[in-house]
């Protein structure tokens, strides 16, 4: 077994600069390095980049992506995919807006009812995905591709493609642009989602079961883990998180839209992978996923400020994604060399 690593990594003397750098790299991964490069590059390109205001607004704009990435991350951990995350966002946006605009009572109750309806719709979508994957044994890639089409279709059907307007002003004032202690509410919500998810995944039994099912479904089953329940939990959590993200996005747009979120499946998977989450399941931390999403947000913001065409931004995201995967593979290889005491 050791032979594999011995063949691939030739011995290097211990203590050299290269070996030190290799160990740091194995320890922290590629993302912090990318973040530092991005921060330096963009602050050189634009004076407005490294200011508190700018970073704050970049985070606020991207908080819904951070939350959706957390949802994607849970499903990736369990060894799946969620390609329907964008369609869930659209369907939730539409249902939240419709529920809110149909209320005649106080703005507060309308907002609360809208949010509850949205989150329930998101969870129902997740449940459907989970049932397909866990009980019908459909490949998650195909299942969520199929439901993405269904959810998008439903969202368009409900609205006939027309944005849902007439939302209470308070909705976007609070969730879209409101602040607490000088920090945007949407940022607080992203933080809260991350903390809750971290607690679920690292400190509870169901969370551990998600990791184990993603790492090895058969080993988990033999250990008495209920694979069905665990997968359902993962997909429903993803649906709920996507819904929270969708509510925030709706608040910023001030309308419910059926055609939003199309780029989310790729963005969230890219963010998680750049953060170092394994596509094979069972490996990754909440912080990795958050940083991956923040990084994508920072790059977009920095390029905007540097007045770089958004087409280039798409190219850069793609290149970074590919590089991150290559770097991650290098890291895995180096890690086994470090374990074997050769670096």
């Amino acid at each position, binding site marked *: *077994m*050791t*032979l*594999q690593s*011995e*063949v691939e990594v*030739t*011995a290097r003397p*211990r203590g050299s600069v290269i070996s030190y750098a290799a160990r740091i790299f194995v320890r922290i991964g590629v993302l912090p390095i990318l973040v530092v490069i991005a921060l330096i590059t963009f602050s050189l390109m634009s004076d407005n980049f490294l200011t508190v205001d700018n970073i704050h607004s970049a985070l606020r704009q991207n908080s819904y992506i951070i939350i959706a990435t957390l949802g994607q991350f849970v499903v990736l951990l369990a060894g799946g995919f969620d390609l329907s995350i964008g369609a869930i966002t659209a369907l939730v946006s539409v249902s939240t807006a419709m529920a809110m605009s149909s209320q005649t009572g106080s703005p507060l109750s309308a907002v609360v009812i809208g949010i509850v309806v949205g989150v329930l719709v998101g969870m129902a979508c997740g449940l459907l995905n989970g049932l397909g994957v866990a009980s019908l044994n459909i490949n998650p890639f195909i299942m969520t591709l199929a439901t993405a089409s269904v959810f998008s279709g439903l969202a368009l059907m409900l609205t006939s493609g027309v944005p849902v307007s007439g939302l209470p002003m308070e909705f976007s004032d609070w969730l879209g642009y409101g602040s607490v202690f000088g920090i945007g509410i949407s940022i607080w919500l992203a933080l809260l989602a991350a903390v809750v998810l971290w607690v679920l995944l*690292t*400190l*509870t*039994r*169901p969370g*551990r*079961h998600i*990791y*184990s099912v993603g*790492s*090895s479904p*058969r*080993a*988990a*089953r*033999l*250990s*008495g*883990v*209920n694979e069905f329940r665990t997968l359902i939990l993962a997909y429903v959590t993803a649906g709920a998180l996507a819904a929270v993200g969708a509510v925030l996005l709706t608040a910023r747009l001030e309308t419910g839209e059926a055609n939003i979120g199309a780029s989310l499946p790729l963005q969230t998977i890219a963010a998680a992978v750049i953060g170092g989450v*394994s596509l*094979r399941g*069972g*490996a990754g931390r909440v912080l990795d996923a958050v940083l991956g999403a923040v990084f994508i947000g920072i790059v977009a913001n920095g390029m905007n400020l540097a007045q770089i065409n958004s087409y280039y931004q798409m190219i850069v995201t793609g290149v970074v994604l590919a590089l991150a995967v290559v770097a991650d593979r290098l890291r895995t290889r180096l890690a*086994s060399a470090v*374990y*074997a*005491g*050769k670096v």
Partner: protein
Amino acid sequence: MTDPDHKVVLRVRGLTKKYPGVTALDGVDFELRKGEVHVLFGENGAGKSTLISIISGAQHPDGGTIEVNGRPVHLAGVAAARGLGISAVFQEFSLMPTMTVAENLVMGAEPGRFGLINRRRVRRLAQERLDEFDFHISPDRLVETLSRAEQQMVEIAKAFRPELSVLILDEPTASLTEEESERLFSLVEEARGRGIGIVYITHRMAEIRRLANRVTVLRDGKLITTVPGGTPDDELINLMTGRVVEDLYPELPEPGTRVVLAARDLSTFDGAVRNATFELRAGEIVGFAGLMGSGKSTAARACFGLERVDSGTLTIDGADLTRARPARVMKAGVVYLPSDRKTEGLLLNRPLRETVTLPWLHRGSISSGPVLRPGRESAVAGDMLRRMKLSPPDPERTADSYSGGNQQKGLLGRALLGDCSTYLLDEPTVGVDVGARVTIYDQIVELARQGNAVLVISSELPEILHLCHRVYVFAHGTITAELRQDDINEQTILRHMMHWDEPAKEIA
């Protein structure tokens, strides 16, 4: 022995390889003659892998010389070694699963012109290569449709080239069935007959008996000795471990009588087990013996809820658990140690701690309600790893960074953690070196001493002979004999294993 003039094709002298903190090879001498099978024998970590990776050019030694056909050589890399006629077949196959046998056989040297591959010639070349070895595999089959043994054969055919003089095989039967192994053995003999020198790594005594012309024993990176192939097993094990074989198996305690698990006329849906009736008693070690595919493993898996049961009953402590799920069976105090630790046991990319505690997360010692207690969990896992003598006993290392023996000790330790009363151990020492075996045998006997019911399913006859109070022999899905204490001997077991006019053959 087959070659009278004892021509040496490969000789290494004083080979040394150091890693920081470890000397993997310490001045090892080794020679390989034309037309011999030379077995490398030693515990995991003895230096076998390092030695073959140096000979195959994958690594460079820190000291020592290598001679091929009497000329000193420098092996700059795998390609250089191959140029000198040295090829290695490692445990991980290098075949492309979605390509045909023919495409794999010519890979890297595809015949053709102007960058276009001549498919007719590819097929012809491959067919010639297969005919040479008398392999009856169609060159048009996709590699993924081949059995492990067939893949191994294609891999070997690929390693063969006209100038081949040294063939290195690293535990080639590790995942083969008896029948497949048999075909591999004849192939190895065929290669030997053609004057090829074969370096063969194995842990299995039967293979050494069957194939070895000479055996070189390594321990802790040092050459212990080179002995002729007919050397008795006990002596070889003695050389490898520095211990005598009787010491491997601890003394058995007095068996108990209370029946814990009882299966009556159990048949599985797939027909792998038919009308099996057996029982496990507290304080007793029961063995399931039989060939691969005889149903011995399926019967135990059916008890644990892993196989569909067609008819019959299963009771545990009097409760009917015939078609219960694994989680339910575990609640009744039963634990199953799978034989395939990579796919059914370990969470490979997670810290070993998580594999160890996974079945017991609901226990009060690790969690309160649904909330885990990380400190307690680490302590529980760390204690267990130390007790099972894992090296290093670090619960935060990922499971895949441990050697096979350590992984197996970890899984057995995990089974022990649950305070269960019935232990179903499926090939508890598969791929485990002798040093780790001693730890495992001690634990198994200790379990029985504490009054637990223990089932040992094993393809290793010595384990059945020395470790069990009572033995059920399986053949073709049915139990053909139940043997007690004095009746447990090699001849009787073999006779019942071969039940139903099976042609007699040698058993591991």
